[in-house]
């Protein structure tokens, strides 16, 4: 299964990549919103995991793009250190499937990814 992880914090990126690769996923990375969109279009991943605060486009904008502009129903999991209720609500309203706050438990991430 192809997973795209969009995250500008290299350490988080590395952790998620490490953990998911261990579980057997084919992991692709994007360090900002622009790279994220490019890779979504090019790779057509099976699951998208994205942070909210990123250069160029935020994770929420990515959700919007994927659902409305690209019309894809790819499962999207948001991983963010912003845990505000309104952000979470907005994410789900835009069409995200899941929301995990950082710092996240790697087990939790793994279990949630498995759901999709």
């Amino acid at each position, binding site marked *: 299964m192809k997973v795209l992880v969009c995250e500008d914090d*290299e350490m988080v990126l590395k*952790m998620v990549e490490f953990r998911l690769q261990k579980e057997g996923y084919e992991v692709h990375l994007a360090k900002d919103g622009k790279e994220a969109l490019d890779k979504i279009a090019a790779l057509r991943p099976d699951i998208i995991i994205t942070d909210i605060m990123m250069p160029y486009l935020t994770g929420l904008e990515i959700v919007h793009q994927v659902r409305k502009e690209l019309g894809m129903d790819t499962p999207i999991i948001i991983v963010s250190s912003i845990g505000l209720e309104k952000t979470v609500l907005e994410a789900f309203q835009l069409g995200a499937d899941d929301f995990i706050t*950082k710092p996240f438990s*790697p087990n939790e991430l793994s279990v949630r990814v498995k759901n999709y």
Partner: protein
Amino acid sequence: MGLTIVKKLIELQGGNIGVRSKLGSGTTFFFHLSFEIASEEQLNVNVVEEKDDHSTSHLRILVAEDNPINQLIVRKVFADWETPIEFADNGKIALDMLQNASFDLVLMDIQMPEMDGYTAVDKIRHELPEALRNIPIMAMTAHATQNERQKCLEAGMNEYISKPFEPSELKKKILELTNSVNASLNGSMPVSEKEQKTDKMEPTSEASDPQEEFRNSLQTPNLVIENPSIRKEPVLPEHQINLTYLKQIAEGNDSFIIEMIEMFLNKTPQALEKLNSSYHEKNWDEMKQIAHRIKPSFGYIGLPDTQKMLAEIEKLSEEHTNPERMAELVEEVQVVSKSVFVQLQSAPTGMK
């Protein structure tokens, strides 16, 4: 069995052995062996070897080898090096021994009864408890072909040596395998050894620019353990790093932890500098971004309080209020980070 071995050894070296025995009186064994007289040069080479201060005596090595003659030779070589070893007669026994005692390296013969070297390596890499999986393994093989070498490496061995081996080459390879950071992180170095090594290094002066010093020290690839700037100052509890979170994710993979630490050390000093300079330039947007960016990494190394400080810096720079409090926080983060950098560079990250 001893007699058979001695006979074989002597005959291998082109000699012969005999016995004279008289019932009730005694037995005399005798043998003839021919040797060349060594030249000065050859003698000196050996002397240089002995003076080699690269010692393996701190290592504990498991040798999986069933052939008694080879066992004898290996035993002698490691006895010369004053290096403790233990033998396993086949792969299965080797696996058992690995789980019951602590070893720094495995010397693995390929051809063994019951479970051969390839099978054993595979099981070590995939079936043993995670903390044991990365132990350095060197194959000993009678076939020195490129093919065999490839096969060994693909099977999961770290290195190979052909039989009969040249002792100095064996030693060199053992040192290479165990001097890598991974190996030292398996807890092989006794504490006294570590302290001896640091005594030999130059003491750190109170660096005028600690961030610069750490950035410079990042040139070295083997970051953890080898860095000399290990201050003996006690660490304040609120500055104490905690690698539990990283260890949980790593699940025994020490190189993952090292990479994370290296990433932290590569990025954080510069980020803190920028945080400072953007404060002085009153560039609140940039301050907010930087604080937001480096905030999580302090969480990963077990410093939630510092993480909270950065969160507060982030909030204050968004509101453009209370610059005095901001200055306080920025300074506090820098103070903690100084201690953190030192701790990380000497952090034992092994799982044992």
